[in-house]
């Protein structure tokens, strides 16, 4: 029995175990607690890396919980149990998650040094990590619901961490209400699937769906809920509140939960819903929601003067790119167009997801550095920070240029793929995407101009502490790495993910 076959359960279990241990460690001392937290996080990162290695060498496997042989034959009876899939797509998702998590964690160590109640903060951090990992790894509908709720609860509690600020609690409550309503409807649609087919596994449901009225209802509900969780317009309104009011180091991680929901949505669409609904219909919904997200997100960002809120709206508009790209790919799935540009669209969408996770984290963290140094988050009052904070300025430039899609940074490579393929599908879509990209550039230029340029107003005492710089540095290194070698990323990470969903390039 190869221990490597247990890796999916470790990726879920290690953060859980260390989250359970953190309150006990917190009773001893701060250092032990921090050590436990970091150990859990880095072990998870190690296991994600090992799983990526295993997946890329052996081609992936299905882990069956509670079976005598965890990777035994996939009979119907073994699929009655809960299964995790370790394939290219899981690897793509967990890699995105763990990079952001490590960045946010190192950042928290420096940023939140003085705050009270940090034991709970680290516990909730690890719980959110476990929840997102479980969400993207699982291949069982009810299990998806459970991890969905874990993610919602833990991230809501994190948003409300600054309970001395009324707005934080308000944002958390709104996020909580909307995700609980969504979760309950998700439960109802899981019940519909169960009542119709008597099974809960993705594979078994995907085998038997045939597009009846009940399938239709359940598919519609699940899609809308996951799109809501991914903060797609017009259900995006919780996202700016939550992102803006969350504690600054954790914000990219809250954003990652919505990216995780998007991963789950894509997996469900390609795995399960494909047999039930004709692809153009679902693809059209995705494209429509995506275009709306891009456009409304960026328009609302124009009116913002709060730095975190602005980036939050930008992230809403970035979600739109992925939904549109994958929607185009899905809409052309069974046609001849798929070979010519559909595959490229999905490629671009997936590549954009991992890119987006990283550079959005970088942007949020550099905005957090601004707030840490100046205690101001209003763009009307900021100015001249580049004089005192050169490193932060550099990191912000990298993130900003990447999100705006300026060559040679990684955002450009994925956006180029999206533009090309989407143009062939419908030119209007590509034009909208380009316009949105231009406005994004204008927006990040605005932030850069307002916060960093201008005469030195002595707002900050100097550069932020080194642990925060290290965190931003890691993310910047990843962005630059992705920028320099986009082909390797596409061929080594994105294409296996597509193949594991059955839509090879």
């Amino acid at each position, binding site marked *: 029995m190869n221990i490597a076959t247990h890796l999916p359960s470790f990726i879920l279990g290690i953060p859980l175990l260390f989250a359970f241990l953190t309150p006990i460690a917190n009773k001893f001392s701060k250092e032990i607690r921090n050590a436990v937290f970091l150990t859990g996080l880095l072990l998870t990162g190690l296991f994600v890396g090992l799983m990526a290695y295993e997946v890329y060498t052996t081609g992936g496997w299905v882990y069956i919980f509670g079976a005598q042989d*965890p990777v035994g034959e996939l009979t119907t009876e073994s699929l009655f149990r809960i299964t995790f899939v370790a394939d290219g797509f899981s690897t793509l998702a967990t890699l995105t998650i763990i990079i952001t998590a490590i960045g946010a964690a190192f950042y928290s160590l420096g940023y939140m040094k003085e705050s009270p109640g940090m034991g709970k903060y680290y516990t909730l951090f690890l719980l959110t990590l476990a929840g997102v990992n479980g969400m993207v790894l699982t291949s069982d509908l009810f299990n998806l619901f459970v991890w969905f709720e874990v993610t919602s609860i833990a991230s809501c509690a994190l948003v409300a961490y600054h309970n001395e600020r009324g707005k934080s609690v308000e944002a958390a409550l709104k996020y909580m209400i909307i995700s609980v309503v969504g979760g309950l409807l998700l439960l109802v649609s899981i019940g519909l699937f169960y009542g119709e087919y008597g099974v809960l596994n993705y594979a078994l449901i995907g085998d038997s769906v045939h597009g009846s009225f009940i399938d239709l209802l359940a598919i519609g509900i699940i899609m809308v809920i996951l799109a809501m969780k991914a903060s797609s317009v017009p259900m995006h309104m919780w996202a700016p509140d939550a992102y803006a009011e969350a504690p600054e180091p954790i914000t990219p991680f809250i954003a990652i939960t919505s990216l995780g929901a998007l991963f789950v949505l894509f997996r469900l669409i390609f795995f399960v819903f494909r047999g039930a609904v004709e692809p153009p219909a679902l693809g059209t919904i995705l494209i429509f929601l995506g275009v709306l997200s891009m456009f409304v997100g960026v328009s609302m960002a124009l009116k913002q003067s709060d730095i975190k809120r602005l980036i939050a709206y930008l992230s809403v508009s970035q979600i739109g790119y992925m939904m549109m790209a994958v929607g185009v790919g899905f809409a052309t799935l069974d046609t001849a167009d798929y070979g010519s540009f559909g595959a490229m669209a999905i490629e671009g969408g997936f590549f954009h997801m991992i890119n987006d996770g990283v550079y959005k984290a970088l942007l949020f963290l550099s905005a957090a550095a601004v707030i840490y140094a100046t205690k101001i988050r209003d763009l009307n009052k900021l100015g001249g920070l580049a004089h005192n904070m050169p490193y932060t300025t550099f990191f912000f430039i990298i993130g900003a240029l990447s999100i705006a899609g300026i060559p040679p940074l990684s955002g450009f490579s994925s956006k180029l793929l999206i533009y090309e393929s989407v143009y062939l599908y419908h030119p209007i879509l590509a034009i909208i995407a380009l316009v949105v990209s231009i406005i994004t550039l204008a927006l990040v230029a605005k932030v850069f101009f307002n916060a960093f340029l201008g005469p030195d107003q002595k707002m900050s005492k100097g550069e932020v502490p080194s642990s925060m710089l290290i965190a931003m540095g890691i993310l910047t290194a990843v962005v630059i790495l992705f920028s320099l070698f986009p082909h390797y990323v596409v061929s080594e990470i994105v294409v296996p993910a597509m193949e594991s969903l059955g839509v090879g390039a």
Partner: protein
Amino acid sequence: MKWKMSVIVRTVSDVMVVPIIVFGIYLILHGHLTPGGGFQGGAVVASATALLIVSNGALKDYKGDFSTMESAGLTFFFLLAFLGIVMGFAMFYNSLAGTGGIFGGTVMSGINPGYINTGGTVPLMNIVVGMEVIAALSLILWMMAKNSGMMEVEK
């Protein structure tokens, strides 16, 4: 000033606490034989906490104990699930069932009166989940009661 209820209610709830706890533990321990289990029994035991809070308006500072108990219960639950991997099977595999150790008895197929000494890891998991649920629900009640002014912390 503690906000107590009348002496009748206090006496009755003091007397009722022990049977409630025992009944909850009975539900936990017999979870694999009769309706009940870790969650239900834990909730029943936690309602004993609720009873104490409501009748006396005060409770001793059990917060740290509950917190430790909760973490310990969850950790043991995880380790019991992990036992499957240690024994060479998948996670959550019931590796103790029918092996003759603690809770390792065998049961005859079909309708039977039910023997407590069966189930493998299932009764053990019931116990640890029961611990977790007792502590978690008591902590929730504790915090909310303290914040709503219906309870004070006793020295």
